[in-house]
């Protein structure tokens, strides 16, 4: 057993109390999913942890879902850390195969007091932990271990700021990219670049379909369950819409409806787009489609599996907005609250090493995720993977995601369901968006507003 797992003592009375709790939990579980926390229980000011005189623990546990097949490179960095810091031990635990699984495991761990010392927080989960008060504000620990936050890319750091505090450190950060098959582009007589707008791509699509490429579709829309809420922000923003503006849900605005009508027509029978069932990056790599939108975290995988030259470009703009129309994404690193200060400090020390300029380049090379440090020397990365430069350059025209996706618990899933109705069932866009708005507003009123 690792040194950082803490077991609460259990006496007879505690056991009886626990069995009562277990029964209650079963009843609650039968009724529905967990809410963020009891309404009205959100504290006001952020209380920083004081690390004066604290000695870091020798052993910490790091829960990751190893995004972008990052397990081996993360372990490589851990080995280097342990070699550079004799006596220190980092236990890397695969806590799930995606962001949802690691989140469920972390949520469950809260109830039993078995939390790790460091955990991967996806863009749609970290705010939930802030509202639950299950992660610590990092400002004081950043200062204690000497992390220079100004050297991290500002747009990525800001994603984790709320209520005047920093709640996570960027790590496996990504943006969506436009991926295309250069051979198919050539066969269709298209210029070797990504389209500047979706309207331009709609003009190109018939040429791609007419060319003898063997592709099923000119474009493959991303797998909705994981991607709809994230990547469709690009389409919504391009038409002047969005899922929300601050905390006001605007998914049923004329601009948003117009953007989704465009996607609906593209995915209609006989249209130029398909919808991926599982993984659009694999669909592209297999040669089944000519283009797609996927995470920068898919870059390494696509380049290693595709048997054709792969092109990447900025996300296309829309008819109303050219840029910025690219959302940030991916995951950061957070430190749980209910662990000893010694472990929190040790976790922060490891974060400093894990996200150092050298290690962030190594991590980017192996996975395709963005280099998160300004001082990181990207020359070797760009020489080895020229496509990575596109992702790095696109950072300048990114914008933070809509609150409805990243701050509303379960909002992302509701967006995916609505997108599936529109694209797979060809449902009425206005009606679907009005229903989504009602659902998102309910989430805000019951789970977000009371805890802000």
């Amino acid at each position: 057993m690792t040194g950082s797992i803490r077991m609460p003592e259990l006496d007879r009375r505690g056991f009886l109390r626990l069995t009562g709790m277990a029964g209650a939990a079963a009843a609650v579980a039968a009724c529905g999913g967990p809410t963020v926390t009891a309404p009205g229980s959100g504290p006001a000011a952020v209380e920083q942890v004081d690390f004066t005189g604290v000695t870091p623990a020798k052993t910490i546990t790091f829960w990751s879902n190893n995004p972008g097949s990052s397990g081996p490179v993360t372990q490589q960095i851990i080995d280097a850390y342990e070699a550079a810091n004799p006596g220190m031990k980092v236990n890397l635990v695969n806590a799930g195969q995606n962001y949802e699984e690691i989140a469920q495991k972390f949520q469950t761990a809260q109830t039993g007091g078995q939390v790790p010392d460091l955990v991967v927080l996806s863009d749609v989960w970290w705010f939930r932990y802030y509202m639950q008060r299950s992660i610590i504000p990092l400002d004081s620990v950043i200062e204690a271990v000497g992390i220079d936050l100004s050297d991290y890319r500002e747009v990525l750091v800001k994603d984790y700021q709320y209520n005047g505090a920093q709640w996570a450190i960027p790590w496996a950060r990504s943006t969506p990219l436009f991926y295309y098959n250069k051979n198919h582009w050539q066969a269709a007589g298209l210029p070797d670049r990504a389209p500047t707008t979706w309207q331009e791509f709609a003009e190109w699509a018939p040429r791609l379909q007419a060319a003898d490429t063997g592709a099923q579709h000119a474009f493959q829309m991303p797998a909705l369950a994981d991607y709809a809420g994230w990547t469709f922000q690009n389409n919504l923003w391009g038409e002047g819409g969005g899922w929300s503006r601050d905390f006001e849900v605007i998914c049923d605005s004329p601009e948003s409806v117009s953007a989704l009508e465009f996607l609906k027509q593209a995915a209609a029978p006989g249209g130029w787009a398909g919808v991926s069932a599982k993984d659009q990056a694999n669909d592209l790599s297999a040669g089944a489609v000519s283009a797609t939108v996927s995470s920068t975290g898919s870059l390494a995988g696509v380049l290693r599996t595709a048997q054709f030259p792969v092109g990447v470009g900025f996300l296309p703009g829309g008819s109303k907005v050219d840029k910025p129309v690219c959302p940030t994404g991916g995951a950061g690193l957070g430190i749980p609250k209910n662990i000893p200060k010694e472990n929190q400090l040790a976790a922060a020390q490891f974060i400093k090493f894990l996200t150092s300029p050298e290690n962030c380049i190594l991590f980017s090379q192996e996975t395709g995720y963005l280099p998160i440090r300004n001082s990181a020397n990207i020359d070797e990365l760009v020489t080895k993977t020229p496509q990575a430069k596109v992702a790095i350059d696109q950072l300048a025209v990114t914008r933070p995601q809509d609150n409805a996706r990243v701050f509303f618990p379960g909002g992302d899933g509701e967006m995916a369901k609505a997108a599936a109705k529109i694209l797979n069932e060809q449902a009425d866009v206005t009606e679907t968006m009005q229903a989504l708005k009602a659902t998102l507003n309910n989430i805000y009123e019951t789970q977000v507003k009371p805890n802000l």
Partner: protein
Amino acid sequence: MTVTLPKPAPPQGHPLSPRNLWSAALSSYVAIVVVVLIVALPLLWMVLSSFKSPAELITTTPTLFPESFAPTNYVEAAKRIPLVRLFFNSVLVTVIGAGIKVLLAIMTAYALVYVKFPFKNVIFAGILVTLMVPPQVSMLPNFLLISQLGGVNTYWGIILPGLGTGFGTFLLRQQFLSIPKSLTEAAEIDGAGHWRRLWQIVVPVSAPTIATVALVSIVFEWNDYLWPLIIITDPSMMTLPVGLNTLRNSEASALGYPLLMAGSVAIIVPVLIVFVALQRYIIAGLTQGAVKD
């Protein structure tokens, strides 16, 4: 008056005549071959894919055989996860977990059939109700209880919550009810108590059904993913399904597929061996108790 005698039936052809062979093939063997192919082809595909590169798997023009039969993926999978240790964990959890589960099911079913006590039917109804409750509902209470008892990262923490089996108890109860009363009554007259009657008469007679319950329990324990994922955080304590998960990831799934195939072969082969060893009993067990004397 002309009497028309019925024509004598044509002599039966030789059993191996083309006509008989053809009808036998059409009526049974073709169906068997089709079913075997449906079952075997995915397994064959998995084994062959475990030798392929990601580019060979992610393609619109797949080939059946890999370019090379080099065990690269097996070596890489073993490097990434401690396969031997995980295999040991899975075997231990499966043998102990399934063993106790079957033992408890046998004894519970025996009590429900042969022991007189109040509210027997109510208790049996309660056992049936457990079959209707999704296991996810009990996940959180189980985690609370096991973690407070110190069961995180322990073998008993993985095993304990799954020891009660409503399905096994139900199946064995139905089987025990179908055993002729005369058998147990004769043993009772000879002075055999419940314990001897259970192990010397009821269990031997019910061997096929017990083998079925054992197999279902073994397969369930061997494949269980969600509970071990939640209760285990120490990589050295993980079972194969959880450990195997480290070979596949979000956002770069293509790279993990060949490794996943190699790891899956390691998981499935032992279960297949158990199934082959017990199949005679399983087939008999699934049909036993279907006909009332």
